[in-house]
């Protein structure tokens, strides 16, 4: 049983008049439910229930006065476990302290322990996200961070392997080294334009030495357009027109590109040319070629079509201004004298330095070569 006393409704109010009961004996009320309205000197006030429970007694009827702190109503003790609640020391003059039957176990001293599960992978969240995005298992990443952490770069290495054991890294030496330098220089300096066409060489006899025929065709071309047989110095904008023709012959070797030079080819017989070509080939193979045999080309022939390749943007190497590339000779269907026929076709690629040579000059040079190869020239060479 607990008695609810009329609380102090305001400073200095000694009593209040019951205006209206909202509840009656036997009612079940909830906490905060209005119980009664009372009239004080100041106002009409609703008094909420301090607890939930069943009401067993009301003190006073409407119109009667109740003193502050005097009993107002009484709750059943059914749900009130502590019958002495009213008189018991609540342990505080302010507020209410929660009490319970909770018994805490005696405390043991738990020492901090490190878990065996602890991951020793150190990685920032952003890197973790990056790794997840690329399906990289962090356990497989070798950390290189200053704190032993995995960095973005460490993860990137696994995405694009560039250091796999199979890859061999080596510095370029010898001919390859110079090829790298020379080609880069040529690429930077020369305005390399390539003109392509084909020659119908069906009329050439079967055992014709193609290389020698090409050399003779080049001589014809140079005769038609001597401006292709020139050295050009881009720094001082001067060109030297050569009277003699020294022809570089591009030769592919395992060590790299060699370009030995056939000197003074203008008046040499096909047989002499072949002899000289063979000598140079051999000395290149044997690595005995003399320095002088590699210098002084005024024009170059690259017979690249031995295995495959029709046309190529062959590269002019300064100070020369022209180079001819010959692709793979093959049989093709062509229109010949008004009829479809199978012809032997030689693809030609002429590169020239457009700083020095005009398109027209190059085109006339190529036309002269083709006429020679096709047996249409006047046999000047």
């Amino acid at each position, binding site marked *: 049983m607990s008695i609810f006393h009329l609380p102090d409704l305001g400073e200095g109010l000694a009593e209040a008049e019951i205006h209206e009961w909202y509840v009656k004996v036997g009612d079940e009320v909830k906490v905060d439910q209005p119980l009664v309205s009372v009239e004080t000197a100041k106002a009409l006030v609703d008094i909420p229930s301090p607890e939930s429970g069943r009401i067993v007694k009301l003190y006073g009827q409407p119109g009667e006065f109740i003193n502050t702190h005097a009993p107002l109503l009484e709750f059943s003790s059914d749900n009130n476990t502590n019958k002495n609640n009213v008189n018991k020391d609540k342990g505080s003059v302010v507020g209410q302290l929660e009490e*319970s039957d909770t018994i805490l176990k005696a405390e043991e001293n738990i020492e901090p322990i*490190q878990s065996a599960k602890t991951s020793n992978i150190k990685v920032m969240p952003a890197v973790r996200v990056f790794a997840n995005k690329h399906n990289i298992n962090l356990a497989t990443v070798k950390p290189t961070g200053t704190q032993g952490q995995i960095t973005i770069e460490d993860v990137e290495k696994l995405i694009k392997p560039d250091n796999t054991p199979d890859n061999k890294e080596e510095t370029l030496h010898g001919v390859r080294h110079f090829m790298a330098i020379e080609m880069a220089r040529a690429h930077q300096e020369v305005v390399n334009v390539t003109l392509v066409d084909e020659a119908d060489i069906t009329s050439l006899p079967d055992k014709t030495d193609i290389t020698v025929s090409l050399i003779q065709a080049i001589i014809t071309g140079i005769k038609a357009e001597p401006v292709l047989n020139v050295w050009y110095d881009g720094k001082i904008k001067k060109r030297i027109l050569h009277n003699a023709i020294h022809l570089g012959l591009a030769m592919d070797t395992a060590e790299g590109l060699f370009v030995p030079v056939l000197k003074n080819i203008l008046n040499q017989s096909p047989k002499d040319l072949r002899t000289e070509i063979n000598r140079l080939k051999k000395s290149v193979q044997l690595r005995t070629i003399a320095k002088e045999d590699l210098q002084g080309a005024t024009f170059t022939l690259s017979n690249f079509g031995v295995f495959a390749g029709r046309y190529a943007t062959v590269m002019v190497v300064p100070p020369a201004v022209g180079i001819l590339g010959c692709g793979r000779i093959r049989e093709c269907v062509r229109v010949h004298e008004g009829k479809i026929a199978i012809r032997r076709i030689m693809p030609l690629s002429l590169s020239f330095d457009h700083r020095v040579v005009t398109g027209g000059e190059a085109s006339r040079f190529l036309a002269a070569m083709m006429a020679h190869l096709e047996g249409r020239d006047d046999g000047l060479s």
Partner: protein
Amino acid sequence: MAEITLVEAINQALAYEMQADPDVILLGEDIGKDGGVFRATVGLLEKFGEERVRDTPLAESMIAGLAIGMAMQGLKPVAEFQFMGFTYPALDQIINHAARMRNRTRGRLSCPLVFRAPFGCGIHAPEHHSESTEAIYAHIPGLRVVIPSSPQRAYGLLLSAIRDPDPVIFLEPARLYRWAKQEVPDDGKGLPLDRAFILQSGEDVTLISWGAMIKETLSAAQKLKKDGISVEIIDVATIKPLDKQTLLTSIEKTGRCIIIHEAARTGGVGEHISAELAEQALFFLKAPIIRLTGYDTIVPYAKLENYYLPKEQQIIDAVQRVLEFA
């Protein structure tokens, strides 16, 4: 041995140390005849007399100043403030004198005193009886701030606080004063200050709390256990100086951490702990460090008090949230 409440454990510790050390003096408002606003000192006046259990006027600044003077002259005063909200008039004495007397006198004098105060809400008291402003004291160099959360820890930590040669702010969670009981042997054994207590070992997540919020933290862990989630619970106990090592070791193990305190969010001790862990346990974190705190408001009156306090369900939700991370 009978089980006793937290407030009874406080009383037991005071009685033990007064018996053991005649230099221990109690002072405060209504601590003598009335036995204290929460009855923490009940019976001590009768036992030790008016010389050693002194009722003071309602003047907190004076209580603090008196205690500092006594301490500097070799006594070991334990002063009670009725509520944490009432300590503010004494802040000048505490910050400007108690906290720095050892430094000011180059070690010649010290302040071996304890300032006790109940703190926290949840007891339906008026608003300035409800706050948790422990961060104010934790911020002041020269002060230890100790908060027990069980009868055993209240007993052991208070004994150590009284024996400590420097000032200790001893904050008692009023909500837990009579909430639970525990066997507390009256053996005079102090518990170490400056050390966090692992209340439960676990693997998945670390719950860090102190004071009354330990209650919800423990019950949340109980429920999580049923879901197969292994929770480590740490009662920081001494929030200044902080036992970082225990916290770090735990985070390195679990990688997840939730800090629960009832104090307002901004500038709370949870911020400091979160920052320390972010700096030092960075590579071990599997999820953001979560803080569950009171709001940046004055603690509301009785009806909204429970809304203000972090709830068991919030702790459970936060645990689920951090478990969803890597």
